[in-house]
């Protein structure tokens, strides 16, 4: 038993860190350091740089262009990338679509979609959730009727992240409305977002950002060749996708980056007549967060290291711990960063004022953006199965109650 990185792992971490340091474009790093989310073009640019290095398709087997990393290496890479801070890889392309095609796709589908997904030539989105369904995916109603060598899709998806950026969508549809169980009669389709009949309508989040969408399908014709796996067996594909190894689910790098940034900024603002960083209660709060991050880091090591040791396919119940504790930390650390800014964190002024005048921006962008992150990440305990549902999962899996 050894919690330290092996020399190989440490060398790998140094290599990743050096590569990111030398290759992450300065403008992207600066925007992200200020707390902005990456723009579409930032994500594309960075993923292509990584792909050129062979580091984009991190969770794919080597024969399909993956780097052949262990789970520990993937974890190291993801954390270094978050801490940098650099845009995260497209999870739709890399973590979701890729493994699905590799497991279930035809050779034709693999050839056609995998290289473009790795290079972000196609931006993918996920058409799973539907209005009123929430975390209850299997209740989906969007219908696909066979018409010759096409499916005709009608229905509506919601919470579709980045659909407005997307070239393609992987979509769960109901192909047999008369199936005995709700999980049966579902199929998994790949849909070109330029197909006529698709309407994307933005959903604005409480941080003011446009990240989510509603997507409407009105007689959208999808070639049958774009179905993955058997008709009516799409739930198997979805389960595989959702149950996939969840390295990085704790997003610990992001939390670390937020604390580091908060400490840095706390030198420049005051509380009680001295720098906030010298305030006892503030330091206590940081210390507690660092304890919690350290505990989660080791728990993550334990989970991830087990991925490398045994792969019995069953998801480790500890990964629910990573999700719950990881999102709690994300929310606490973004709240911390916002609190550092104090009153300066409350305006939405960065963009608005820049548009209003030629004078230099009055607000510290980091403070404005810290609030944006805080607001945006209130969703962290909701998406991917709410934290309440994670505890239901733990209850069933471990407690057997």
């Amino acid at each position, binding site marked *: 038993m050894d919690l330290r990185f092996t020399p190989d792992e440490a060398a790998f971490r140094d290599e990743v860190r050096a590569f990111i340091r030398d290759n992450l474009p300065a403008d992207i790093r600066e925007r992200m350091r200020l707390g902005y989310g990456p723009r579409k073009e930032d994500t594309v640019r960075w993923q292509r740089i990584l792909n050129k290095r062979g580091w984009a398709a991190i969770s794919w087997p080597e024969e399909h262009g993956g780097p052949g990393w262990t789970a520990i290496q993937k974890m190291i890479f993801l954390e270094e990338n978050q801490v940098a801070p650099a845009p995260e890889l497209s999870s739709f392309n890399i973590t979701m679509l890729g493994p699905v095609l590799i497991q279930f796709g035809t050779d034709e589908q693999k050839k056609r979609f995998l290289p473009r997904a790795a290079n972000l030539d196609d931006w993918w989105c996920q058409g799973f959730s539907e209005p009123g369904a929430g975390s209850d995916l299997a209740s989906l109603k969007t219908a696909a009727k066979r018409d010759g060598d096409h499916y005709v899709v009608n229905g509506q998806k919601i919470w579709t992240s980045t659909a407005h950026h997307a070239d393609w969508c992987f979509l769960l549809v109901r192909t047999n409305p008369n199936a005995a169980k709700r999980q049966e009669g579902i199929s998994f389709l790949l849909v070109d977002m330029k197909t006529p009949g698709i309407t994307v309508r933005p959903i604005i989040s409480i941080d003011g950002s446009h990240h989510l969408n509603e997507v409407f399908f009105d007689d959208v014709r999808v070639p049958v060749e774009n179905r993955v796996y058997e008709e009516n067996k799409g739930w198997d594909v979805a389960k595989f996708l959702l149950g996939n190894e969840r390295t990085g689910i704790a997003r610990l790098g992001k939390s670390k980056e937020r604390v580091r940034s908060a400490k840095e900024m706390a030198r420049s603002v005051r509380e009680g*007549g001295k720098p906030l960083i010298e305030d006892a*209660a503030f330091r206590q709060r940081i210390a507690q967060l660092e304890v919690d991050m350290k505990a989660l880091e080791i728990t993550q090591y334990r989970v991830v290291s087990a991925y490398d040791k045994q792969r019995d396919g069953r998801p480790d119940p500890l990964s629910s711990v990573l999700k719950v504790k990881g999102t709690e930390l994300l929310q606490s650390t973004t709240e911390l960063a916002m609190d550092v800014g104090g009153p300066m964190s409350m305006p939405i002024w960065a963009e608005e004022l820049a548009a209003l005048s030629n004078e230099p921006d*009055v607000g510290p962008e980091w403070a404005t953006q810290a609030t944006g992150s805080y607001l945006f990440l209130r*969703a962290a305990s909701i998406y991917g199965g709410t934290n309440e549902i994670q505890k239901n999962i733990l209850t069933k899996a471990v407690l057997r109650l």
Partner: protein
Amino acid sequence: MDFTLTEEQRLLKDSVDRLMTERYAFDQRKNYLKEPGGWSAALWSQYAELGLLGLPFAEQYGGFGGGAVEIMLVMEAFGRGLILEPFVASVVLGGTAVRLGGSEQQKSRILPTVADGSTKLAFAHGERQARYDVTDVMTTARKDGSGWVLDGAKSVVTHGDCADALVVSARTSGERDDPNGITLFLVDAGASSVARRGYAVRDEQRAAEVSLSGVRVDGDAVLGEIGNGLPLIERVMEAGIAATAAECVGCMGALYDMTLEYSRTREQFGRTIGSNQVVQHRLADMLMSLEQGRSMAMLAAMMVDEPDAAERAHNIAMAKVGVGQAGRFVSQNAVQLHGGIGMTEELAVGHYFRRCMVIERLFGDTAHYLAKLAVAVE
């Protein structure tokens, strides 16, 4: 000890509650946001007609002689309505500065115009470098003949963009952080040497950056004592804390009601989410927080006129912490229990959430006041 309302108080509460129900539905509010100033001029007139804008002023100044309880009742209703108008800025903050600090002549001149809505005041005290440090004033006022010349900048001045007159703190002596040497001035917001940049805050209310470049004011622009403005500033902030504490209770009440209703009706996995015991207990926790917060908002209201300054400050700091924590707990859980839909602009819940967030940071945040209380522990 008595928690009952007088007949007049009940009537006041009913009328403001009714106004909110009829005129401040969430969809109506969206339209007010689109008006030029970001709030409803029509509602503002209506507040004036109902006497709300003169609520805390004596009758001789066109007011209704209401006290802290009346403000609390109105603010709770305004919190439920999530109103956008500059009531706190003009009536509570500016109004308290003039009411408690003004000369007879100043009160007679200004308060009636605040009460009829024709003058909007704003409280321009905070500065960029100060964060929550109340004595960190770097704006200066230097004597110039019988008047003064002000230089400096004020930051995140709530409703500073629409204000007709600003209550500005400036240093007439002393260095940064010196509790002495701060003086309050009444400044015409439209003066050419006053530059304002307005913008929206996260709660959709407006604020402004205000720069003062050689702003000349007359000697009678001084509000209260020269060099001893701090106690008055503290009274103004205390009035603001008490008012926004009640507003936060209104927000929490609305959030609690919405979340309860959502839990009753929203189905998932074939049953209402409210049939989950975990959701039920979370709602019970929210209710307990709301009621504890309400108690603290009452404390703030009761204490805002307490003559003993230390006793007043101590209790209001406790109320600030209690309400801030309650507002955070209730609003975060309201979003959580609503799930994805709670994260969108389309629902009111996110808007209340953000108002609670901003209120927690007005006049200093929870950590700031908890630190004060910790220092004062005996």
